[in-house]
């Protein structure tokens, strides 16, 4: 392993793109680090900068990044969204090229310069000598082609002499190797017929199909359930050993890298602010930014509060929701299979389970968005709802003020009051009044979710339903939103029903936890009971899959705090 420092010149001031710099390789005067060894490096990135032209000026997304990666080594690039880590990987693949992009610096793959390489040559390298796995396997696979065809297509694009049948046979073998059960049959499956985990395995099989030595994995587990995340990471780890792969793992979540990475590079605002072995970064981070990211991982301190055991604000009795997938005569699928529970005033109930377990359907039924097939829903007072993805759930053509005013008017506020009331709402969730004129795309993710929360509070609800309120936010922003929700609850005395796939995300705030599996609540109890004395095997599985910080890390072998999963 080579010791890689941060940029030799340290943090550099902004430089405008220079004509002729694109593809220029190493600049004169730039110190050559470990020259002899870097000749054999799988990937050697020097002083890579990427900027995008926007209406008034340019945005420098990547600024003087230096990285090296050997075969069989895993490097994690960690940073918040917008830190430039994905742009960095996409630039290596040549996917950021375009008339508005300026790329400078050097990136050598096995000694061959990628920056400024002609398009035809680059096309032959993509997929064969470097491959990429993307964040969301659902949207990254073409929905109208069979998965086997999509793998075979890549094989045949690089090896035109291979027949279609041969390529499909190889696709089947690859899918089997990455642990897809019944791979030979699933070659003919369409992406929507596979689970999220299997889809991501297909993406990995595709990346392996031509034996590319370099794998760029851009948030490969972020869109997956916690238990599936662990399986995919284990798969990558195993492949790294078997195939001698060099893996660059890009993520915003420190929690998932401890297991797999040999080294970590921390990125902020397009620069690498700290780089070192995983042990160094976890045990002795030098940058305050790194510490902040690491702190965000530790569970928030459990709050103490005075419980008010008032009358329940929500009661569900034998609630069932059934869907029929194939017309009225087909057998019904039970999304919610007989759920009874009650939520007291000012209480927080967390409903935890994997995607597809029916938790979101349950929440939507309570909100009246889905009609129950049987059972009753009773609640008192008004009800507000906070959605998972604030980007998708805010009208992009309506500014913050208008969104809040509209929510207030829906609750019959007088027209001349709403403006002042909207400002008050915005300030209550920690948004500056000056943001009222902004549109959702002009806000940060955290600010958008605050708007979503403010909108839910418009009717002074006694019950607020929260569907994965922080899962689309960066780890470092989650704390702030969770604290805000706590403050608001203390101030307003409303009850929360929080739905999440991640036990870790709710343990700080929940009074009680209900674990949901296949439409039923398999375990319900006080947060302490469920977390410390889980009764149901499924709860134990969820707990085991929770991303954890490694304790004091030994440098020879990683202590795995995850449960181990196979296939």
């Amino acid at each position, binding site marked *: 392993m080579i010791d890689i420092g941060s940029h030799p010149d340290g943090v550099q001031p902004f430089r405008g793109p220079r004509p002729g710099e694109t593809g220029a390789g190493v600049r004169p005067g730039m110190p050559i680090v470990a020259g002899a060894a870097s000749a054999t490096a799988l990937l050697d990135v020097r002083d890579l900068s990427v900027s995008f032209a926007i209406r008034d000026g340019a945005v420098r997304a990547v600024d003087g990044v230096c990285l090296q990666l050997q075969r069989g080594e895993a490097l994690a690039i960690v940073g918040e969204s917008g830190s430039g880590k994905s742009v960095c990987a996409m630039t290596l*693949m040549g*996917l950021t090229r375009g008339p508005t992009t300026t790329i400078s610096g050097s990136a050598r793959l096995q000694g061959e310069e990628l920056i400024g390489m002609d*398009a035809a040559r680059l*096309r*032959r*390298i*993509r*997929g*064969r000598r470097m*491959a*990429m796995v*993307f964040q*969301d396997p659902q*949207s*990254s*696979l*073409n*929905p*109208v*082609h069979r998965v086997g065809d999509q793998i075979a*297509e*890549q094989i045949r*694009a*690089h090896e035109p002499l291979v027949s279609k049948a041969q390529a499909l046979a190889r696709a089947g073998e690859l899918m089997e190797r990455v642990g897809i059960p019944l791979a030979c049959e699933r070659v003919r499956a*369409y992406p*929507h017929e596979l689970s999220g985990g299997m889809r991501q395995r297909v*993406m990995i099989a*595709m990346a392996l199909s031509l034996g590319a030595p370099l794998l760029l994995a851009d948030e490969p587990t972020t869109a997956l359930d916690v238990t599936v995340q662990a399986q995919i990471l284990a798969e990558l780890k195993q492949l790294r050993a078997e195939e001698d792969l060099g893996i660059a793992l890009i993520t915003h979540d420190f929690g998932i890298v401890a297991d797999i990475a040999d080294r970590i590079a921390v990125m902020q605002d397009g620069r690498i602010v700290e780089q070192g072995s995983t042990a160094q970064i976890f045990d002795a981070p030098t940058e305050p930014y790194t510490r902040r990211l690491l702190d965000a991982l530790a569970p928030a301190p459990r709050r103490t509060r005075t419980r008010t055991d008032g009358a329940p604000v929500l009661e569900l009795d034998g609630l069932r929701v059934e869907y029929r997938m*194939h*017309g*009225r005569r087909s057998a019904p699928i039970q999304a919610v299979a007989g759920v009874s529970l009650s939520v007291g005033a000012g209480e927080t109930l967390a409903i935890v389970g994997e995607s597809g377990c029916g938790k979101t359907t349950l929440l939507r039924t309570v909100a009246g968005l889905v009609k129950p097939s049987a059972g009753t829903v009773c609640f008192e007072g008004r009800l507000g709802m906070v959605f998972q993805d604030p980007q998708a759930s805010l009208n992009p053509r309506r500014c913050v003020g208008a969104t809040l005013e509209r929510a207030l008017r829906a609750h019959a506020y007088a027209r001349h009051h709403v403006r002042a009331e909207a400002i008050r709402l915005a300030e209550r969730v920690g948004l500056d009044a000056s943001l009222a004129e902004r549109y959702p795309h002009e806000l940060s993710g955290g600010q958008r979710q605050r708007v979503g929360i403010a909108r839910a509070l418009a009717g002074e609800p006694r019950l607020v339903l929260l569907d994965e309120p922080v899962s689309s936010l960066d780890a470092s922003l989650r704390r702030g939103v969770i604290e805000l929700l706590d403050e608001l609850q203390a101030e307003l005395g409303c009850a929360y029903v929080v739905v999440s796939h991640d036990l870790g995300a709710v343990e700080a705030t929940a009074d009680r936890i209900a674990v949901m599996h296949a439409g039923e609540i398999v375990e319900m109890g006080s947060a302490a009971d469920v977390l410390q004395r889980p009764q149901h095997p499924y709860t134990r599985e969820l707990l085991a899959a929770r991303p954890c910080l490694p304790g004091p890390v030994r440098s020879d072998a990683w202590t795995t705090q995850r449960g181990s999963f196979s296939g």
Partner: protein
Amino acid sequence: MASVPAPARLSLPVPALVRSPLARFIARRLASLVAVLFAITVLTFLIFQAIPDGDPAVRMAGRLATPQQVADVRKQWGFDQPIYVQYERTIEKILDGSVISYSQQIDVEQEIVRDLPPTISLALGAGVLWLVFGVLFGLLSAVHAGRWLDRLLSAVALTGISMPVFFLGAIMLYWLGYKWGVLPLGGYVPLTSDPWGWFTHMLMPWIALSVVSIGVYSRVLRANLLDVMSEDYVRTARAKGLSERRVLIRHVLRNSLAGIVTLWGLDFAWVIGGGAILVESVFDLGGVGQYAAQSIERLDVPPVMVITMLVAAAVVVIGALVDVLYAVLDPRVRLS
């Protein structure tokens, strides 16, 4: 091009014998066809009852007829019966093929069978033309989005969309037909008797009819293509090392076709059912649309009823074919 409203969906109990999804699909569509035909014929019949001066007996008896003669005609043709009896008789006659028009008192269905070849020729030729050029221009526009070719094609498309068919037709007839004499001045020649004559006679009508649609289709497709180009799976396709051409055809165009196919089916059905009245009249093709226009002018109920049923049937049948094609194009869609 005006689109025809989608046929109403009607769920009827399906016998348990019908097991395969395709058979069930066909059975359900046939049931909906019957329902659509019933609804649309009732509506058409009622509209003609409500039209002022619409009494067919007065028109048929002639301008100088005495009240007695009018009463005789009324009795002879059954116009003195209640509306539902008149409706029932008309439908009966339509179904057994003996329906006679009020104005010329000739067999309506023979008339329509005679008028179908020019209309079908028009629909097929123009349909191919606007699909091919719509896709071609849409593709070129999307690939060159924001550059000069895109702007040029946008301008051309907008000009095409805003060009009235009768205006374009008249210009073509004047220059190509009259001034330069390269193409015949309207009329229809059957394909079977003179293929080249058929082609030269149809060329101008095809162009006149498809210009608007080429504009519309290229704009719709351009928007679809640009949406698909920003999809994650297109990025994956590039990352796999596919050539730009393959990315464009197999991953971008293939995923953008569904909307175009739906639009094309409806427009095609509309032309088959005589929707291209203007083009047929400008070039005097003597098609179904022209016959419909003449019949409406004369307030002649039977031909209008039959043509309306033809449109409805064409829309339902072609709509079903489009749905099958849709399911082939997008495996996530199931026939139901």
